[in-house]
């Protein structure tokens, strides 16, 4: 091979590696900058939020109104933290967070976002509505089971699991999430969000005898599209367990 060609190839390779390195470093810097900016914006409301989570019921009202009135920029920066907290806290703290979302009108915004052109926004909206257990959104979430984006389908399916299964699902992340992801993400891309036909029969055969009852329920949900209301799905889940 001529030396000139070899040198050119090496220089080209070096340029590609350098460009990729710069891209990775740049991406990390931007991400870190955004994270710090978000922390800076959220800092003044972290205290009241923690107070709200630990407050007695009669002490919550003032804190709730204070947090519900924060400006849009702060709310956008705070929302990922709130969404994460919804899945982590229980009892009065969870109730307070749900009330905060209601006061802010964020559930209504999330329902609107289910029709967004952005897959990320649709998925995030499904996640929020599922964690809020927002029943009026159930029909819209059912439609998202046929979304063209597999991540959105997954978020929509998880959002429709009954509360007690969502909680247990969160407690067995390594086992159950693996099972849910495995079944849901194998569905054909276009119409059917989940397994069907022979694949579904095979999957059910594999999982119906699973040692964790909730896995059996979760897997059974793949065939639940004909159940239109949450109540009928809940009763179906109870029967199955």
């Amino acid at each position, binding site marked *: 091979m001529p030396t000139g060609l070899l040198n050119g190839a090496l220089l080209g390779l070096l340029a590609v590696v350098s460009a990729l390195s710069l891209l990775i470093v740049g991406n990390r810097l931007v991400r870190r900058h955004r994270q710090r900016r978000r922390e800076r914006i959220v800092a003044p409301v972290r205290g009241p939020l923690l107070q709200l989570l630990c407050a007695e019921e009669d002490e919550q009202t003032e804190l709730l109104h204070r947090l519900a009135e924060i400006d849009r920029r702060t709310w956008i920066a705070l929302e990922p933290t709130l969404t994460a907290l919804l899945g982590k*806290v229980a*009892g*009065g*703290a*969870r109730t307070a967070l749900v009330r905060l979302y209601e006061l802010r009108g964020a559930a209504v915004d999330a329902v609107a976002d289910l029709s967004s052109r952005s897959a990320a926004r649709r998925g995030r909206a499904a996640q929020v509505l599922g964690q809020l257990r927002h029943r009026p959104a159930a029909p819209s979430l059912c439609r998202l089971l046929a979304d063209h984006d597999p991540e959105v389908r997954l978020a929509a399916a998880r959002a429709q699991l009954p509360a007690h299964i969502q909680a247990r699902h969160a*407690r067995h*992340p*390594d086992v159950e999430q693996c099972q849910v992801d495995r079944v849901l993400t194998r569905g054909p891309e276009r119409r059917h969000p989940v397994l069907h036909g022979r694949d579904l029969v095979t999957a059910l055969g594999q999982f119906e005898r699973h040692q964790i009852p909730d896995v059996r329920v979760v897997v059974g949900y793949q065939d639940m599209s004909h159940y239109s209301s949450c109540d009928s799905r809940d009763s179906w889940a109870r029967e199955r367990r």
Partner: protein
Amino acid sequence: MAALRAARENTVDLALLDIRMPGMSGLDVCRELRAAARTATLPVIMITARSQEADVEVGFAAGADDYIIKPFSPRELSSRVTAVLNRVER
């Protein structure tokens, strides 16, 4: 890693560790804390979504003083922190 460094360089009353953390797991951090003389007796509470008996046993075997399962009540967490700190003071 930053939390471990902070615990080694500063005076800390108690460590709250999630098992799933970026970099090092809470279990590894707990073992590291127990292995170092300066932090060997530091009270540690684990917070995790793992609720099976074996997971809890692993948490306590790593040296945790208490184990809280998500979803948890922040008020319960506060009570447990107080209880662990009171035990240490005695």
